[in-house]
């Protein structure tokens, strides 16, 4: 195919040269060129290899519907599957073709074409089902993955995109003739309007064809300029260019993607795409139509393209891809290509129409006659032939005779379809038009208006009345635009989906889906095999399942199926068009919610001290908590944890507990509310005392625990687990609002307002005395489970005497901003007593030695307080609390429920593993009756051996017996089932 440059126009100037590389070779194009137009200008027709058979493929279209010309942009992190027909070139751009090896010209994978008779519909399903799954995994899949496919994934990609939200009254999608007219009528109205087009220039059909000769007696170009100016000047209309609407959701919610670097290389670190999230009152769809192709033998050869696309290259890019293309059509839409060619001083090599001479538009007939264009009416192309490009075609004329025509380009038109993707995404219904042979929008589901060819109005005669009628609801001025056309005014089409090949051959291929390499034969075979429902047929053949969603071909497939089944197309139906309309990158969807913004990190006020002091962090929900502290780089985690925990038992340790959830509960009825939320009774509790409390779900299962401080009957402070803070507050609010609205009570999270330090160990009192000399920490003045408010250097603090380690312990609550100072203070006073920080792992070990549970580790939402041996925490005299009634359900009073026990290895040297099963037999012989599992497991240097907590069936009555624990090496370890307390069982140290 030899292309020729036509005249310059407003989109392309021939003095602005741009160099780019395609498969390593340098070429020149012009500013404004797409990759496709630039390649055509350089007479490059072979641009890729097909998905399955590796057949040579060229440029088929001039827009978003392109099935073939997908390329990899090497200069943009190797971005794959880019439509060459959309992407604009820029200086220094590097492009590579896809799915070929070692080169585009000599592609090894094209051997698949030889084997093609076996790669038919359902090939994968048939071949790879069966007993030899290993073959699939080890042989077929890797082979097919290498051979079949599109581009390679991008490398080192760090795309930046942002999101913009819009809230408007009207969104117009498509800035062609109808979109502009709709916008024009809304100029300076009271509506906020968004006008969106995926191209750089508004105008659509006015820019892309020579169909229209005059608008309001003006040159279309001039009318366009004026109208765009008026719209831009209007205060209520915003225009988004280079923006493609990909998704039409419920409640008129649209998603559109804007390319921020059209025609230039994206700058690293700058936003390269914007995702627009649009809420709109009404959506006006003016997104036009898409031309279909036709199926015949080798309809995929490079050099074949859609006729409207050829015209678009002429009008928009000043480029005729060929000097003398053959045109093959079954409808009137290709008329204007003939007109454009002749106007440009070129001439079709032949015009072939499946329609009869009487049906062809008279003015086209005249044009063809006047210019001596060879005309074939009632004729069809039986096939196209050539080596990696079209060289000749075989035409069957009205007499049935075969004519061979040599040509380097073939333009197809199989009719046009309204672009109904967005309309069906909006859940509107379609209806088949038997005259125009296409699906058209019929019943909208949302406030959706369709105008122009998007609504199936393929003629211009009703332009004004249609817009005026459909925009009536806006009560705006009526339009009266006068159009004059260069070609016919009435759309006419004759049914033709497929021409059968001249010679029957296993290798003859008429494609129905170019991107997925589906042939019309595959469709036939699927129907023969019983896949005659359109959704089944789609999956079985993969027809229209490519990234182009079969934009130029899916209706043809429906036509073929309806003929084969002898059903009306409406009965065949259509598969559902799903968002996105065209692929959009994950980075655009992610927007700013990636890297450091993906999930916020929460840090305690002491975080920077931890960083400086060798803390290794663990994530607890969003919180960063010190897991353990390394005193030097060589210290292992095990050593650090044992050192930290030993120090707590012998001297004292300090833990940053700031992440603990804290909720303040206030109000006249706070006491009654707390009694309803927690299992415990707070009525008789003295002011200034604290209590360990459990919260249940209505099903009676433990949901959270914490310490409740009672300041008065009207004022409580509750702590929650680090991960449970939001849920507990949410639960309190829910019940306060929905079940007990009569209670006067308020609650608020104060988690971040207060830092918490836990100082614990036999020397804790000495350290506290030193750090807070004005406070009396004696057992009489400050007993276990009480708290006091104090002021320290003007800072209000609350000290609670409580412990999660089993040692004498104090928790200090300090306003977050003052916390680092007091933390440093305590560190310096604690030094002489051996005070050292400890992390969450040592904390877990210490609490497990003491038999304290962790909700979510030792419980899993199926454990009641009774199962935990915590019946004493249930306020039995209380009439009601969350989940109370469930504690006497038949299921919760079962004796063989899983209950919390302690586990130690019978041979103290043996190891235990978290998550392993407790079983009764030494030998593992399936089926093994499941008793339960180990929930927490540690080595204790205090005990000198491993120990564990476990939940096992009937556990409480098994205490004192022996069992086995499974191991990860598929053996068992003998264990003793003991009480779940391993340290200081009578609490002497707590109250010392």
């Amino acid at each position: 195919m030899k292309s020729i440059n036509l005249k310059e126009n407003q989109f392309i100037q021939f003095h602005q040269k741009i160099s780019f590389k395609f498969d390593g070779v340098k070429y020149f194009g012009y500013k404004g060129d797409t990759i496709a137009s630039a390649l055509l200008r350089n007479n490059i027709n072979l641009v890729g290899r097909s998905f399955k058979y590796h057949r040579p493929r060229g440029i088929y279209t001039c827009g978003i519907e392109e099935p073939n010309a997908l390329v990899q942009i090497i200069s943009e992190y190797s971005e794959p599957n880019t439509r060459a027909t959309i992407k604009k070139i820029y200086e220094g751009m590097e492009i590579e073709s896809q799915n070929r090896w070692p080169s585009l010209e000599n592609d090894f994978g094209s051997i698949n074409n030889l084997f093609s008779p076996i790669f038919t519909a359902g090939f994968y399903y048939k071949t790879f089902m069966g007993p030899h799954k290993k073959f699939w995994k080890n042989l077929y899949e890797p082979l097919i993955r290498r051979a079949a496919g599109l581009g390679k994934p991008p490398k080192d990609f760090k795309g930046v995109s942002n999101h913009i939200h819009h809230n408007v009254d009207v969104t117009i999608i498509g800035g062609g003739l109808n979109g502009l007219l709709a916008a024009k009528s809304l100029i300076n109205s009271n509506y906020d309007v968004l006008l969106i087009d995926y191209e750089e220039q508004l105008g659509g059909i006015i820019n892309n064809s020579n169909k229209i000769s005059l608008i309001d007696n003006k040159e279309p170009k001039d009318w366009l300029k004026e109208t765009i100016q008026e719209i831009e000047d209007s205060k209520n209309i915003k225009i988004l260019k280079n923006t493609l609407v990909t998704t039409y959701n419920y409640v008129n919610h649209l998603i559109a993607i804007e390319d921020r670097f059209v025609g230039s290389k994206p700058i690293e670190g700058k936003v390269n795409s914007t995702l627009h999230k649009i809420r709109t009152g009404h959506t006006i769809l003016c997104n036009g139509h898409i031309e279909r192709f036709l199926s015949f033998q080798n309809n995929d050869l490079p050099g074949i393209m859609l006729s409207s696309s050829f015209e678009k290259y002429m009008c928009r890019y000043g480029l005729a891809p060929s000097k003398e293309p053959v045109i093959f059509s079954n409808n009137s839409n290709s008329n204007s290509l003939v007109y454009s060619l002749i106007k440009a001083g070129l001439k079709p090599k032949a015009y072939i129409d499946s329609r009869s001479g009487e049906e062809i538009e008279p003015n086209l007939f005249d044009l063809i006659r006047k210019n001596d264009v060879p005309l074939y009416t009632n004729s069809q192309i039986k096939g196209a032939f050539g080596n990696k490009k079209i060289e000749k075609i075989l035409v069957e004329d009205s007499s049935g005779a075969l004519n061979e025509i040599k040509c380097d380009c073939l333009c197809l038109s199989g009719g046009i379809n309204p672009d109904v993707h967005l309309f069906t995404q909006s859940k509107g219904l379609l209806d088949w038009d038997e005259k125009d042979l296409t699906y058209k929008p019929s019943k909208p589901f949302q406030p959706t208006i369709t105008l122009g060819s998007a609504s199936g109005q393929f003629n211009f005669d009703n332009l004004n009345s249609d817009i005026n009628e459909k925009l009536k609801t806006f009560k705006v001025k009526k339009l009266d635009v006068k159009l004059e056309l260069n070609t016919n005014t009435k759309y006419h089409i004759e049914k033709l989906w497929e021409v059968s090949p001249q010679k029957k051959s296993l290798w003859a291929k008429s494609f129905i889906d170019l991107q997925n390499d589906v042939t019309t034969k595959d469709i036939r075979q699927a129907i023969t095999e019983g896949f005659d429902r359109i959704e089944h047929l789609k999956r079985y053949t993969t027809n229209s399942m490519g990234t182009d969603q079969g934009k130029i071909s899916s209706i043809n497939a429906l036509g073929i199926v309806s003929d084969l089944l002898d059903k009306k197309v409406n009965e065949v139906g259509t598969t559902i068009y799903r968002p996105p309309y065209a692929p959009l990158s994950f980075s655009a969807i992610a927007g700013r919610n990636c890297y450091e913004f993906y999930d916020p990190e929460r840090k305690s006020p002491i975080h920077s001290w931890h960083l400086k002091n060798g803390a290794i962090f663990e994530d607890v929900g969003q919180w960063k908590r010190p897991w353990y502290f390394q005193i030097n780089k060589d210290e292992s985690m095990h050593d650090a944890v044992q050192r930290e925990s030993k120090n707590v038992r012998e001297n004292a340790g300090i833990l940053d507990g700031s992440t603990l959830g804290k909720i303040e509960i206030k109000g006249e009825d706070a006491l009654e509310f707390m009694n309803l939320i927690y299992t415990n009774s707070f009525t008789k509790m003295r002011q200034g005392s604290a209590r360990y409390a459990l919260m249940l779900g209505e099903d009676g299962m433990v949901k959270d625990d914490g310490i409740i401080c009672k300041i008065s009957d009207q004022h409580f402070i509750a702590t929650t687990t680090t991960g449970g803070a939001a849920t507990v507050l949410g639960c309190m609010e829910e019940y306060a609002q929905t079940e007990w609205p009569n209670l006067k009570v308020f609650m608020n999270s104060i988690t971040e307002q207060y830092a918490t330090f836990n100082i614990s160990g036999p020397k804790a009192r000495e350290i506290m005395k030193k750090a807070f000399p004005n406070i009396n920490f004696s057992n009489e003045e400050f007993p276990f489970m009480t708290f006091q408010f104090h002021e320290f250097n003007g800072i209000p603090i609350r000290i609670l005497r409580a412990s999660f380690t089993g040692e004498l312990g104090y928790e200090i609550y300090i306003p977050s901003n003052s916390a680092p100072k007091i933390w440093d203070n305590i560190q310096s006073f604690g030094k002489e007593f051996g005070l050292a920080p400890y992390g969450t792992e040592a904390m877990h070990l210490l609490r497990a030695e003491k038999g304290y549970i962790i909700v979510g580790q030792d419980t899993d939402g199926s454990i009641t307080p009774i199962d935990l041996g915590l019946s004493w925490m249930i306020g039995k005299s209380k009439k009601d609390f969350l989940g109370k009634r469930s504690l006497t359900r038949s299921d919760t009073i079962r004796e063989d429920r899983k209950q919390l026990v302690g586990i130690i290895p019978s041979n103290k040297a043996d190891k235990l593993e978290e998550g392993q099963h407790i079983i009764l037999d030494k030998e593992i012989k399936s089926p093994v009756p499941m008793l339960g599992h180990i929930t927490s497991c540690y080595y204790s240097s205090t005990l000198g051996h491993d120990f564990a907590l476990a939940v096992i069936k009937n556990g409480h009555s098994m205490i004192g017996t022996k069992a086995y624990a499974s191991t990860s090496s598929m053996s068992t370890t003998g264990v003793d089932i003991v009480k779940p307390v391993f340290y200081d069982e009578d609490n002497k140290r707590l109250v010392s």
Partner: protein
Amino acid sequence: MLIINCPYCGPRDQSEFSNGGEAHVKRPDGSKEIGDREWGEYVFIRANPKGLFYERWVHTHGCRKWFNCVRDTSTDEILVTYKLDEKKPNLNNFKSVVKTPSGEPEVGSGNFTVEK
């Protein structure tokens, strides 16, 4: 994504809300004797109709208030929202779009794209 009209704040994006399941399920009075069946139904059983449904939502990332609504589960349309202490609206006041024998709405179910 839906726009939900919070009775306290006005229309807001769905991402600000959390769903709380069926509305108007009364918690049995704990001070009285409650049978196993009655309690079991309260804890475990919820309706799940296709069509009009009383539902609870909470404006989690807003005023944190709970409220009720009537939602058509077949189209996702929220027909009305109202405060907890307001009377529940009569479902006969709303037109259910569920018409076809299989319970699909005439338009908008998303299960087919062509008019039948």
